[in-house]
C-alpha cells in the first residue's frame, strides 16, 4: 500500500505562540474572532495546522491567513461556483473540504498550510451567530484545544446588553481548582467583561511537561433583565430588532399525547432511557394538564382511549404503564435457535412470522391515532378551552409498516392536524431520517430535535420537553406599522415557550420613528394578551459612553442572519415556486453579508508549495442531515447506531438488493 505513515507533526518545530478568542456580543448577536499565530522554528518548510470548532448555529463570515506578509483571504461564493474550483482541486488529488461535523453542537474547521523555514503564519477566523435563549439563558460556547501550552492564550468576551444583564456565569469543562480563579468577570449593569488568560505555566498539566490542561469547552451563560411586557425594541442604523420575552406569565395548560416507538430497534438502552425520561416528564406534569400515552411498532396501543387529567392518581397510573413499555423486537431467525426447542413447529413458524411483523415501524397510523384522540376529546369538550394541544413523537427508525411513503405521511398528518395542534418530533439515533421529522414538525407548528445516543439520552429527552412543555402564550402576533418598517422577519409564532425569546427584526423606512407603534397579541391562560408601546432609537453612545464605536452594523447583520435562517427553513416547505424564491433570496443575502450558509461556500486560496500553483480549499456550512450522515460514516463515532447488530465475529455474506 501507499505509505500510511503519519504526516510530520508540528510538535517540535512549529510553535503556536499566540491564540486569542475575542467575542463581542451586542444584543444577543455574537461576533467571534479567533486569531492564532504560529512560528516554524525549523530550517526547512513545515506544514502548519489550524483547527477550530465553532457552534453549528454560527455562520463563518471570514477567514484569512497571513504568510510572509501576504494575506490570503477567504471569499464567500455560491455553492455551484465554489464547487467548480473545488472539483479542480479534487481532480488534482487534494482534499478540499474544510468543515466537518464535530459532536452534537459544533463543527470543525481545519486548514493546513506549508510555511517556509523560520517564518510566521497568522490565521484569523470570524464567525457570527444570534444567541438563542433556552430555558432562561443564552449560552456562548467556545471550544479550545491547543496541543500544547501557548505563550499568549486568551479568551475575552464582552457582552453589551442595553436591557441590563441579570447574571453571568463562566465555566469550562477543563477547569481545575487552579484554573477557575483565573477567570476574570466584571459585570456593570448593561456590560459584562469575561476574560481568561492563563500563563504557560498555568496551562501545563505538570511542571515542565508539554501537555496542556486547556482542552474543552469554555461556556458563558447569561440572561438579561425583563422589565416590560412589550419587550425591548432597539433601533440602530436604520434597522430594528424586537426582543420579546415578557416576565411573569402563567403557563397555559397543555394536552399532550406521547407517541412512543417500541419497535425492535429501540431495544436495550434506548427503550430504558425513554422510560426513564417519560417517568420524569410525567412527574412534572401540572394538575391542569391532560396527557395520553401511545406506543407503536407495526401495531398501536394506547394506554387509555382518551386524554387523562394529570391528577396525582392518574399520573401514578400512567407511570405504571410507562414502566411496562417494552421494545417489541424479538429473537427471531438465527437468534431463536435455543428457543426452537421449546416451541412446536407451528408455534415456531408463527413466531417467525410475528417477528418480522413486530420489527416494523408504523409512524403514520400512530401519529394519526394521537391526532384523532386530541380532535375527538376537543369535540367532546373534555379538554379545557384555553389550553394547547401537542403531540410528542419519539422514534428511532424509518417507517416501514402501514404508510411508508414519507411525503404521503407528511401529507396525511398535516391534513389531519389542520393547524389545530403542534407536533414535536424527537429523532433518536442515526437511523432516522431527520429531515423527514424536521419537515413534518415545521409543517405542524412544532420543532424536531435529534436525540444523540449516549448515556445522557434521557436527559436530552427531558431537556427538550422542558423547552417546549411550558407554553406561556399561543398565536403570538407582533405588529409594526406597515408604513414604518419593511423586510420583516417572521412576526407570527404559534407558541411562546417559557424561558425562550421571540426575536423579530426589520428595516426602518426613512428612519420614521415618530410613528413606530408596536403591538403584541397572544392568547394567555386566563385572557388574551395585548400590549402596545412606542419604540425609540437607542443611543448607543449614551448607553456605553466609554466605549469606542464598536457596534457598527450589528443590528443589520442580526436582521440578515435571522432572515437567512428563516428563508432556509422556508426553502423546505410550500410550493416549488415559494421554495425557489426563498432559496434565491437566502443565497443573495448570504453572498451580500458574506455568510457561509448551506447555500454558499468560502473559497480559501492558499499557497500549496513554493513552486506549485495556489490551490483552493472550500469551507461549507453543514446541514443537520449532513451532520447526521457524517456521524453515520465516521470512524470516530463511538456509539454506532447499529450497535444491536454488531456480530461477535466477522461475517461474510452475499445477498441481493
Amino acid at each position: 500500500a501507499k505509505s500510511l505513515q503519519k504526516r510530520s507533526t508540528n510538535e517540535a518545530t512549529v510553535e503556536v505562540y499566540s491564540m486569542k478568542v475575542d467575542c463581542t456580543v451586542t444584543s444577543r448577536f455574537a461576533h467571534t474572532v479567533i486569531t492564532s499565530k504560529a512560528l516554524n522554528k525549523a530550517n526547512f518548510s513545515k506544514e502548519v495546522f489550524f483547527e477550530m470548532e465553532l457552534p453549528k448555529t454560527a455562520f463563518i463570515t471570514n477567514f484569512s491567513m497571513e504568510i510572509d506578509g501576504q494575506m490570503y483571504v477567504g471569499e464567500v461564493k455560491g455553492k455551484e461556483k465554489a464547487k467548480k474550483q473545488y472539483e479542480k482541486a479534487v481532480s488534482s488529488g487534494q482534499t478540499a473540504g474544510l468543515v466537518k461535523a464535530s459532536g452534537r453542537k459544533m463543527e470543525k474547521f481545519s486548514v493546513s498550510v506549508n510555511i517556509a523555514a523560520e517564518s510566521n503564519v497568522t490565521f484569523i477566523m470570524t464567525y457570527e451567530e444570534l444567541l438563542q435563549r433556552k430555558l432562561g439563558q443564552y449560552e456562548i460556547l467556545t471550544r479550545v484545544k491547543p496541543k500544547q501550552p501557548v505563550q499568549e492564550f486568551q479568551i475575552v468576551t464582552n457582552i453589551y446588553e442595553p436591557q441590563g444583564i441579570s447574571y453571568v456565569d463562566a465555566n469550562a469543562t477543563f477547569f481545575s481548582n487552579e484554573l477557575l480563579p483565573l477567570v476574570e468577570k466584571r459585570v456593570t449593569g448593561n456590560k459584562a467583561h469575561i476574560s481568561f488568560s492563563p500563563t504557560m505555566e498555568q496551562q501545563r498539566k505538570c511542571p515542565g511537561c508539554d501537555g496542556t490542561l486547556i482542552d474543552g469547552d469554555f461556556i458563558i451563560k447569561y440572561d438579561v433583565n425583563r422589565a416590560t411586557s412589550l419587550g425591548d425594541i432597539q433601533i440602530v442604523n436604520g434597522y430594528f430588532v424586537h426582543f420579546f420575552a415578557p416576565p411573569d406569565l402563567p403557563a397555559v395548560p397543555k394536552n399532550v399525547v406521547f407517541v412512543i416507538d417500541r419497535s425492535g430497534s429501540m431495544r436495550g438502552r434506548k427503550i430504558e432511557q425513554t422510560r426513564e425520561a417519560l417517568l420524569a416528564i410525567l412527574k412534572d406534569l401540572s394538575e391542569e394538564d391532560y396527557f395520553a400515552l401511545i406506543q407503536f411498532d407495526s401495531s398501536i396501543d394506547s394506554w387509555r382511549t382518551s386524554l387523562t387529567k394529570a391528577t396525582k392518581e392518574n399520573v401514578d397510573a400512567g407511570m405504571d404503564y410507562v414502566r411496562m413499555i417494552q421494545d417489541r423486537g424479538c429473537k427471531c431467525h438465527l437468534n431463536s435457535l435455543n428457543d426452537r426447542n421449546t416451541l412446536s413447529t407451528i408455534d415456531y413458524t408463527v413466531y417467525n412470522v410475528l417477528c418480522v411483523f413486530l420489527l416494523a415501524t408504523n409512524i403514520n397510523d400512530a401519529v394519526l391515532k394521537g391526532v384523532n384522540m386530541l380532535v375527538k376529546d376537543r369535540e367532546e369538550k373534555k379538554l379545557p378551552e384555553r389550553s394547547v394541544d401537542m403531540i410528542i413523537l419519539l422514534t428511532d427508525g424509518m417507517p416501514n409498516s402501514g404508510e411508508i411513503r414519507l411525503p404521503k405521511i407528511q401529507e396525511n398528518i398535516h391534513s389531519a392536524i389542520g393547524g389545530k395542534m403542534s407536533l414535536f418530533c424527537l429523532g433518536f439515533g442515526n437511523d432516522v431520517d431527520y429531515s423527514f421529522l424536521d419537515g413534518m414538525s415545521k409543517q405542524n407548528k412544532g420543532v424536531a430535535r435529534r436525540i444523540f445516543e449516549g448515556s445522557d439520552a434521557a436527559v436530552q429527552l427531558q431537556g427538550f420537553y422542558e423547552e417546549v412543555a411550558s407554553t406561556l402564550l399561543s398565536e403570538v402576533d407582533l405588529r409594526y406599522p406597515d408604513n414604518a418598517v419593511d423586510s420583516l422577519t417572521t412576526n407570527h409564532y404559534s407558541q411562546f415557550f417559557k424561558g425562550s425569546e421571540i426575536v423579530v427584526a426589520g428595516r426602518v423606512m426613512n428612519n420614521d420613528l415618530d410613528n413606530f407603534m408596536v403591538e403584541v397579541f397572544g392568547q394567555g391562560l386566563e385572557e388574551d394578551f395585548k400590549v402596545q408601546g412606542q419604540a425609540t432609537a437607542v443611543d448607543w453612545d449614551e448607553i456605553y459612553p466609554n466605549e469606542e464605536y464598536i457596534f457598527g452594523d450589528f443590528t443589520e447583520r442580526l436582521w440578515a442572519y435571522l432572515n437567512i435562517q428563516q428563508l432556509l427553513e422556508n426553502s423546505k416547505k410550500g410550493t416549488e415556486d415559494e421554495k425557489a424564491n426563498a432559496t434565491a433570496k437566502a443565497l443573495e443575502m448570504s453572498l451580500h453579508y458574506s455568510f457561509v450558509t448551506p447555500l454558499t461556500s468560502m473559497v480559501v486560496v492558499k499557497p500549496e508549495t513554493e513552486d506549485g500553483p495556489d490551490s483552493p480549499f472550500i469551507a461549507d456550512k453543514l446541514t443537520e442531515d449532513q451532520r447526521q450522515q457524517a456521524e453515520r460514516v465516521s470512524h470516530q463515532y463511538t456509539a454506532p447506531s447499529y450497535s444491536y447488530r454488531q456480530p461477535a465475529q466477522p461475517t461474510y455474506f452475499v445477498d441481493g438488493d
Partner: protein
Amino acid sequence: PHFIIELPERDDALCFNINGIPGTIFSLVRDPEQGILVNGQIIGDKKIAPDGKIKSYFWRFGIIHQTLGVRLEVSTQDISVLQDGKWVKLLWSDTASVKGLNVDLLLTKDCSLTVTLKDSVKFVVLLHKVWVNHPYHRDYLGFYTLDSHLLSPSVHGLLGQFYHGIEYEVSGLRPGEVPEKPDATMYVKGQELNVTRGWQRDFRRDVKNGENVPCWFIHNNGTGLIDGDATDYVVSGLF
C-alpha cells in the same frame, strides 16, 4: 448481488457488487485442504425494469464437503441434501430440523436454512420471496457465513479469500457524487482505490426490510479488493 465483509473488530465493513451474465456460476468459497466448495449461480430479473437497471441475484448454490461426503444444492425452489449416503429433499415451505452425523440443518419455513458442517463451517442461506406475479423480480437467495475459523489458510473464492482478515486503511474522506455518500481513498493489497461510503443490507434479522450495514463500497466489481478480477471466479458447473 452485493458482497459484504463485516469486520467487527474495526467496527467497519467492506462491500462490493459482482454483476454478471445470468447463468454465470461463481466460486464463493474453495478450500482445497478441507475439500469444501461453495458455488453460486446468478439469475437476472424477468425483464429489464423501467429504471433500466439490470440486476442479478443468486438463485442456486452448490455446496460440497468432500471429506464429510456432504453435498447440498439449495435453489429458490427446494433444497437437496446428500448426507450419510442418502438424498433428502426439503421444500422451502417446510419447517425442519435435521441432525446428521456430519451436518445439521435447520430450515425455517420460507425464510432461512442454517447449515452446520461438522468441524468446518456454519452458514445460512436466506430465501427472499418475491410476489409471484411481480413483473420484474424473482425469488433469490442470500448466503451468510457465520463461522469460518476452522477453514484452512488456503481457503479462497469471492468470499473465502476474506475469511482470514483483510488489511486496509482509509483516508481522505471527501464529498462524493451524492452528498450522503462521501468518497475516500482506500489503501489495500498494495493499491490505492477510490471508495464510497454507503450501505448494504443484512437481511438476517429482518428478511423483508434488512438492516443497513454502513460499508466502504469498492467500485467496478470489487476490483482491487478481490484477488484478480471477477471473471477469475467463474466456474463451469455448480459442483
